[in-house]
């Protein structure tokens, strides 16, 4: 009874939040994973309860695109190749591969000892069947087919050799093939279940798919026959965990109680304040485990605002640059996300392969320079509330505001900072589909967006003129940039592509087409019962194969 009373009272009082610094990501694709120095040796057994957000889409990796399905299913499927944290490719289901001199045909030699969870053998025909399923327009693939690029056809040369033919050279292909969306499914299961396949998935991975309760839970079980783990994993043979139960938490407020009550052992996408409370409060009561934070840098595009370069006044380079000089980005990120959160310096997050670290020196916070640029562009003080004017028109910018990623807080700070420069920023709260349409029509000056991916070719979707009618929110039509983007897709060797991407990023920042805010961080919390948890290079997907639990 007393405990009850104190619980109620404690709810009414504010709990002091201890400051727990998130570790910064190392540049060049490596992540800083806190070294959970543990003397515990791996032990088999136990059920891991993993909490994640509610997937909006279905859960078939060939068809659907959400990262939640990748989190849950990357243990069920193996891929032809595996990418390590530095971006190098290792054998997965394919032992080795060669590329034809014209760069258009990959020949993969497959492992011979692999079986699907239903006992059928993995071979070249299975690969062909999978790739054809993804490429078939009737499948309506929302992501996997785009990872294949200019895919033409695949054919089995012999039982364990498969040729993948492209219409033109495409360097990001291996990156695509390393993702769970191009995982290998059992052709027998595809035939048997047809359009119900997503509820009965069969792969070759260390965990087998047991069941999916729509919008509730997804259950996996250990695959005892697993003997083909890639060399990048920390052990070989079957996984340690008996079972993994994923539970979906739609509301951010529900995640902390789930961790504290022990209903979840690991929780993804913890709100920062809740995560701090988890590790800061005295939670080490008798019998209760402690907690560990695992922030993971997510590669891809940073959270940034695209500046619509065709909508006046942002069609003037000086005004765009003024926005960049006039925003204290480090201060903004620190205020919203905490003092050690990574500030973005360019269109690519620092953890992405090919991200140009030299951009950090560009656009330091310089409000005087911003005012000077605005004055040069013809905007003068007129006296009505301090907003600048030109030809009798006030300097008004319209920004799209969405509800994710603390954008409302960021927007409020930008409004205040820019008002001091004489800019009136008006924010328009929109739901996601309405925001996409607004970006498409180009009705607003500022469009916030974020995008995950490991290959810098993702810049194409946002800056190539072919995508003006698509996701090119800044409405960029720059022939030099188009040329570099096209060229950078071709050579297979990374050191031939890297200089082009440096030029591309340089041009984007010189032209001030984006206002970068913050590199994305996937903040996970785990109970200290959980050992060996690490995330793959994509940033979102845990490698549950190497995880073990303390005995209960």
């Amino acid at each position, binding site marked *: 009874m007393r405990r009850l009373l104190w*619980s109620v009272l404690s709810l009414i009082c504010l709990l002091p939040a201890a400051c727990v610094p998130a570790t910064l990501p190392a540049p060049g694709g490596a992540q800083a994973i806190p070294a959970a120095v543990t003397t515990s040796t791996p032990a088999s057994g136990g059920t891991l309860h993993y909490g994640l957000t*509610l997937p909006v889409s279905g859960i078939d990796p060939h068809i659907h695109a959400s990262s939640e399905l990748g989190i849950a299913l990357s243990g069920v499927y193996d891929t032809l190749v595996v990418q390590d944290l530095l971006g190098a490719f290792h054998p997965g289901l394919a032992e080795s591969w060669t590329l034809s001199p014209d760069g258009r045909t990959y020949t993969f030699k497959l492992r011979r000892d692999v079986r699907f969870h239903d006992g059928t053998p993995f071979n070249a025909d299975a690969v062909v069947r999978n790739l054809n399923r993804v490429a078939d327009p009737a499948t309506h693939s929302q992501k996997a087919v785009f990872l294949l690029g200019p895919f033409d056809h695949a054919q089995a040369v012999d039982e364990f050799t498969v040729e993948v033919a492209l219409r033109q050279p495409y360097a990001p292909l291996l990156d695509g093939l390393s993702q769970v969306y191009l995982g290998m499914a059992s052709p027998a299961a595809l035939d048997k279940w047809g359009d119900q396949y997503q509820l009965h998935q069969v792969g070759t991975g260390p965990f087998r798919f047991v069941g999916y*309760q729509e919008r509730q839970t997804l259950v996996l079980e250990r695959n005892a026959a697993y003997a083909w783990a890639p060399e990048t994993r920390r052990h070989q043979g079957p996984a340690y965990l008996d079972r993994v139960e994923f539970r979906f938490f739609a509301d951010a407020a529900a995640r902390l109680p789930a961790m504290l009550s022990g*209903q979840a052992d690991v929780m993804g996408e913890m709100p920062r304040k809740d995560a701090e409370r988890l590790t800061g409060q005295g939670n080490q009561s008798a019998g209760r485990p402690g907690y560990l934070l695992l922030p993971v840098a997510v590669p891809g595009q940073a959270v940034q605002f695209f500046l619509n370069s065709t909508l006046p006044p942002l069609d003037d380079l000086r005004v765009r640059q003024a926005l960049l000089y006039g925003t204290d980005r480090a201060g903004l990120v620190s205020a919203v996300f905490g003092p050690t959160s990574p500030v973005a310096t360019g269109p690519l997050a620092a953890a992405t392969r090919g991200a140009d670290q030299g951009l950090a020196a560009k656009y330091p916070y310089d409000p005087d320079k911003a005012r000077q640029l605005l004055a040069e562009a013809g905007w003068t003080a007129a006296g009505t509330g301090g907003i600048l004017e030109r030809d009798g028109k006030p300097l008004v910018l319209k920004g799209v505001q969405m509800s994710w990623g603390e954008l409302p807080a960021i927007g409020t700070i930008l409004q205040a900072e820019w008002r001091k420069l004489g800019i009136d920023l008006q924010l328009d709260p929109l739901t996601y589909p309405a925001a996409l349409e607004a970006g*498409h029509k180009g009705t607003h000056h500022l469009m916030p967006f974020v995008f995950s991916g490991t290959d810098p070719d993702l810049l194409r979707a946002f800056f190539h003129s072919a995508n003006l009618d698509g996701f090119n929110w800044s409405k960029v039509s720059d022939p030099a940039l188009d040329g570099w983007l096209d060229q950078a897709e071709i050579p297979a060797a990374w050191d031939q592509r890297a200089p082009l991407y440096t030029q591309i990023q340089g041009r984007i920042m010189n032209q001030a087409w984006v206002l970068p805010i913050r590199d994305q961080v996937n903040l996970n919390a785990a109970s200290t019962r959980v050992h060996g948890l690490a995330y793959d290079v994509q940033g979102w997907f845990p490698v549950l194969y190497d995880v073990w639990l303390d005995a209960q």
Partner: protein
Amino acid sequence: MWSYLGRRCLTAFMTLLGIATVVFAVVRLLPGDPAQVMLARSGASPLAVAALRSELGLDRPLAVQYLDWLTALARGDLGRSLFNGRAVVDLIREQLPYTLELALAAFAVALPLGLTLGAVGARWPNSAAGRAAMVVSVAGVALPVFWSGLLLIWVFSVQLAWLPPAGADSWRALVMPALALGFATAGPIGRLTRASLMEVSVQPYVVVAHAKGLPERQVFVNHALRNAAVPLLTIAGLELGFLLGGAVVTETLFSRPGLGKLLVDAILWRDLPLVQGVVLVIASLYVITNAAVDVGAGWLSPQAGWQ
């Protein structure tokens, strides 16, 4: 009575058809294109977006889409979810039991609680008990389910570890959502019960019953309560209908499956067939509940009658 039922059925059918048409039109007027939303995570080219839109049949003339939908509906086919790929009927069939479970559990909490609060408030209006009953009722109306739900979670899951904070695995997971939602629903029922009872207690037939020397309890139950029950039943029916429509906030907070959250997500993401299907099912539940309430009201109080 049968002609009454017959007329009610016809009205119900017309209502549902009207709702179906309005939803079909409105959800297509909202800004945003499902194909674009589906491909936003892949950075696909505009050609790919257009191709997907075409494959999904979203670029056909509205009249064609409407007729296709009506003919499919006549066959009992509600279409396929755009985002999920699964049949809408399957999705609804999976989520409906959870909504029914929560609605009935919350109603089972709300009705006795609300009636008791209202009766206490009406019987002893100026006493401490009566006032306390009304304060509790107002609290039910005013306090958001989100807040009271979180409070329950903190106390019963985190501190006491008696109940699970999320999910719908067992009866234990139903307790807190039912309490939070039931308390919120009991509020309006309590207030209306009190108002209705107080109004009835000054009616001529109650005064006459008292004058005839009938015991207080008999007056209360046979005369006052029976007549006060009619508006109560109507409101209770509306509340039940609302609960059946899916209590979105409760479902979200407790990570429970259910029609409410399914519908809200479908609207937010422009999953057109799912929106149409779920709205139709919820509207049908409302119509059935209200028809049952009207029949019940007519039986309870001949004065209300069946018009």
